[in-house]
């Protein structure tokens, strides 16, 4: 008898592989949508990087490559067997599903749900599935984050530090998750080890990249600085793009700093406020980054939403789950349509898609707000739900 977890992992792997190989053109089509690919995560830009690397052309001197050197090198390595790429991505996605189930196992007593439920939710989440099929490199980041979280919860802080350093190397926003991770560590010494180890690993990764990029730091500008300056204007589901297209030149530096501060603003408050439930603080921080980062994809959103089943004990406290889910469905269904109206047909204008990106932002923020409220509620009730009690805040 195969355990249900193995079945879920196999199903996850098979579904992704099946979609990739049954619809071979789907990968390219998804990679061109603004919902699943951004300049910093698109598979095309990775291919371009590998091409330039293999032809001895400048990879990071401007251009379209915004992926870190190690990823580009990996892609160049895989170039002769590119048809196996879907297998790699499907395997990574299944690994994430597997890790989610392991986390659920750790919390089985509190959760009171079978541990395979988060796995099923992840495997069946269309956002995650399509993101995996599009071969967006945000999957690498998600895998590193979930691995790091699993190791931290299991008490392997050194491994957790290494994984979060890898995630941070791929996408610097993951470094922000170090703060809730330190909360998970619990003890000061473990926290110090985590911080030190991740710093060392990050340095090593940067040095390796530096040497791989012909002893040139110019990849920093194309891969990290672009996240802060938002220099590649391309529509996405985030809050940044239309704001900086329409903003008056004079105010752009000011608002760029505001938006960057906005990203980090709630990391520390969440970690401090929920220091008794550091895992949940971690998830809320993840959600906040998904909402505020400069180049979000639906892959990020799907990854965040995959953690919602872990909030099972507080589901009763949610105030507007219906509104949140409707907002989310509304955004996801209408965004490709409105984008096509604007870009493809020309019968709608940019405001249509902009409105949808706002709705998506509202959806994610309402999920975060609702979960935060529920967390506060259950904290007030000291873990014993008393749903009839009416509470307020002053």
């Amino acid at each position, binding site marked *: 008898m195969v355990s249900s977890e193995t079945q879920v992992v196999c199903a996850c792997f098979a579904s992704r592989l099946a979609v990739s190989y049954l619809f071979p053109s789907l990968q390219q089509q998804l990679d061109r949508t603004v919902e699943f690919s951004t300049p910093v995560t698109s598979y095309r830009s990775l291919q371009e990087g590998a091409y330039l690397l293999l032809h001895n*052309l400048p990879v990071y001197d*401007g251009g379209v490559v915004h992926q870190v050197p190690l990823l580009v090198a990996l892609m160049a390595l895989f170039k002769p067997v590119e048809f196996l790429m879907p297998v790699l991505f499907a395997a990574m996605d299944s690994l994430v599903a597997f890790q989610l189930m392991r986390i659920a196992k750790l919390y089985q007593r509190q959760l009171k749900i079978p541990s395979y439920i988060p796995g099923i939710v992840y495997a069946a989440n269309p956002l995650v599935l399509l993101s995996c099929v599009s071969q967006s490199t945000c999957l690498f980041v998600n895998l590193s984050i979930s691995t790091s979280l699993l190791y931290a919860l299991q008490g392997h802080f050194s491994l957790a530090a290494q994984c979060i350093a890898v995630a941070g190397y791929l996408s610097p926003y993951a470094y922000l998750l170090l703060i809730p991770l330190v909360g998970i560590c619990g003890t000061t010494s473990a926290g110090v080890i985590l911080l030190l180890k991740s710093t060392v690993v990050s340095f090593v990764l940067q040095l390796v990249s530096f040497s791989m990029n012909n002893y040139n730091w110019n990849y920093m500008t194309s891969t990290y600085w672009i996240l802060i300056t938002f220099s590649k204007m391309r529509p996405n589901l985030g809050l940044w793009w239309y704001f900086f297209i329409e903003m008056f030149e004079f105010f752009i530096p000011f608002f760029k700093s505001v938006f960057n501060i906005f990203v980090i603003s709630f990391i520390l408050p969440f970690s401090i406020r929920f220091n008794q439930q550091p895992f949940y603080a971690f998830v809320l921080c993840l959600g906040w980054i998904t909402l505020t980062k400069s180049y979000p994809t639906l892959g990020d959103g799907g990854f965040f939403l995959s953690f919602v089943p872990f909030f099972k004990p507080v589901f009763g406290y949610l105030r507007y789950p219906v509104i949140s889910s409707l907002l989310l469905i509304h955004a996801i269904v209408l965004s490709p349509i409105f984008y096509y109206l604007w*870009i493809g047909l020309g019968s709608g204008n940019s405001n249509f898609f902009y409105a949808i990106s706002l709705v998506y932002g509202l959806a994610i*923020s309402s999920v975060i*707000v609702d979960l935060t409220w529920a967390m506060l509620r259950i904290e007030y009730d000291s873990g014993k739900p008393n749903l009839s009690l*009416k509470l307020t805040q002053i």
Partner: protein
Amino acid sequence: MKLHSWISVLLLVYKVTAELEADVFPVDNEVDSIQQEVIQETRKNGTDESSSVPPSSELLSLEDPVQYNFQENLNLTPLPNNFLLASFQFYMQSETFGVNRNEHESNVYSHHTVFPKPVGPIMSQTNTRQLHLRFTHGLWDSQEWGQLPHSGLKSGGNGVELWAVIEGPSKEKAMQSWITLANSLSGLFCASINFIDSSKTTFPVSSFLPTEDDAIPLFNENSSLYLIRAALANEPICTENLTPFVKLLPTRGKSGISSLLDGHKIFDSNWHSLSIDVNTICEDNTGECHYSMEEFVETVVNVPNSLARADRPIPKPLGGDELRCDTNKPHDAFQCFPLPGSREVDFNISKLFGKKICGSSLLGKTSSKICAHVPSNWNVMVQVGDLLFTTDDNCFNVNSNEPHDVHFETSDSGNVLISKETPLHVSRALTGYGQDRGGLRSVFRNPSNQPVELVYFESLPWFMRVYLSSLALESDDSDLTLDSVVKSTFYSPARDRERPTHLERKLVIPPNSTLALSFQFDKSLLKYAEYPPDANHGFEIEAAVATITSPERYEARSSSLLLYLSTPDFSMPYNVIILTSTVMGLAFGTLFNLISKQLLTLEEADRILASTSPKAKLLRLKGKIIGLLKRNNTKPAKIAKSE
């Protein structure tokens, strides 16, 4: 005078082995001989040239007392389908100057004679050693008309094209000089050349290399030469550009063949090109230098159309009796099928250009020359006053000050001199739909029996994000691979708002074949203020340049393209600021409240509110005041309160 050592930095593809006579300019035969004369003359005279008096043998006449290094030619070539190519060519040279100008500036009297006064200072201030400027517009039908005049070396892509060899201690300094040069030329030619900035400028690697056999002089041994190029495809070429062109000529369009240059006629054509090339030429041993300048104006006019417009400036339908009807087909007094165009042609160029040639240039060393390149069935006559002359080679010298006119007549205008076939046909098109991405497809057709080697130069604006990995080859010949066509690639990727994509590929096109190279690109969104006022018109993409190196030297250009970018809503700035900020504020504010406020039951909250609400505060204040008043009245009250 110091002896300068010359460093030849930009070496040429082929080495000069021939004698002096062999180093000719790549123009057609007629011009070659004249050019040689000028050059030989120059070399003979050497530095004595500043005396500006011709060698003794010629008679000095009062009407023509001094003669300068100025030469002008007019070449008239009928093309198939009743087109006529008129090519005005002007050559001039500056006086010599010493290289180390600081030494000389104060005590040497400088005279610019026939060389245009504004050009010299621009060249010297920006350390420009070679300057090439092209204003071209229209379509050259290479299928019908064959090769471009001067093998395409004297015409640019649609719009303005500028490239220069600039001396500078560093690339940055050279770039500064380049910007200065662009701004100066912008003022000089009334064109928007000042829009050239780093985001449009490239440093070509194997295209646009200087063609002259001599090395470009380097005035300072510590600096080096930089070849810099930019093009503006959206620049309309118009009369305000021609007027400064004519002003650069010593004759100012008042005499000589330049008197034909009238903007209304030159630009009323299917294709026209204005070009300027300035070279710095130095003597190896003396260190004396001079500028030599070539100014070409070329235009292709449709003869019947131009004649009709001269007859009827305001277009009106022809009268019934003037219609040339095909009587074999049904017809009546009002409508009929037209006869095929007449092959009989009989016209004067004064009718095409609106006026006659006002005599000779008066100051050239050699007389102005008019040549017609026609087969034997054409009769070409020059008309001086009332007299008509013919010559064997259809070339005429304009010596007198009488008005001159050229008369063409033939019974079969379809019979023209066969032009050499273009070694390669290049065309380029945008593919795909949608405003967020697209493709660029270049088609190369080699009609000849030998392989064609070329350098294909493309400079694309930064808002086209090129995916070089998507480069694909389409060809009927399945054996052909990308590697066998593309021999080498130079790629400098675009940097946003800083520099364009610069692609130079060495290609070999096999004989008698057609192939297409294509790649994909993403279109970027621009910032709201970066769109031009007519944002939905699209953005012109400059022509690609194919420099053919073998079997013959030739430059072909593709047409320019129009790229549509998606646009934001230009009326939205305030709305976007408000709406985005609202969403951000909503998320931030709610979370901030949740995290920072205390959680209470409703009853507790009511109780606390009751004691902290403004009303309660007012009541307490009132109580305090009353208490104070009472304390003033009675002491026991105070004691009671203190307790």
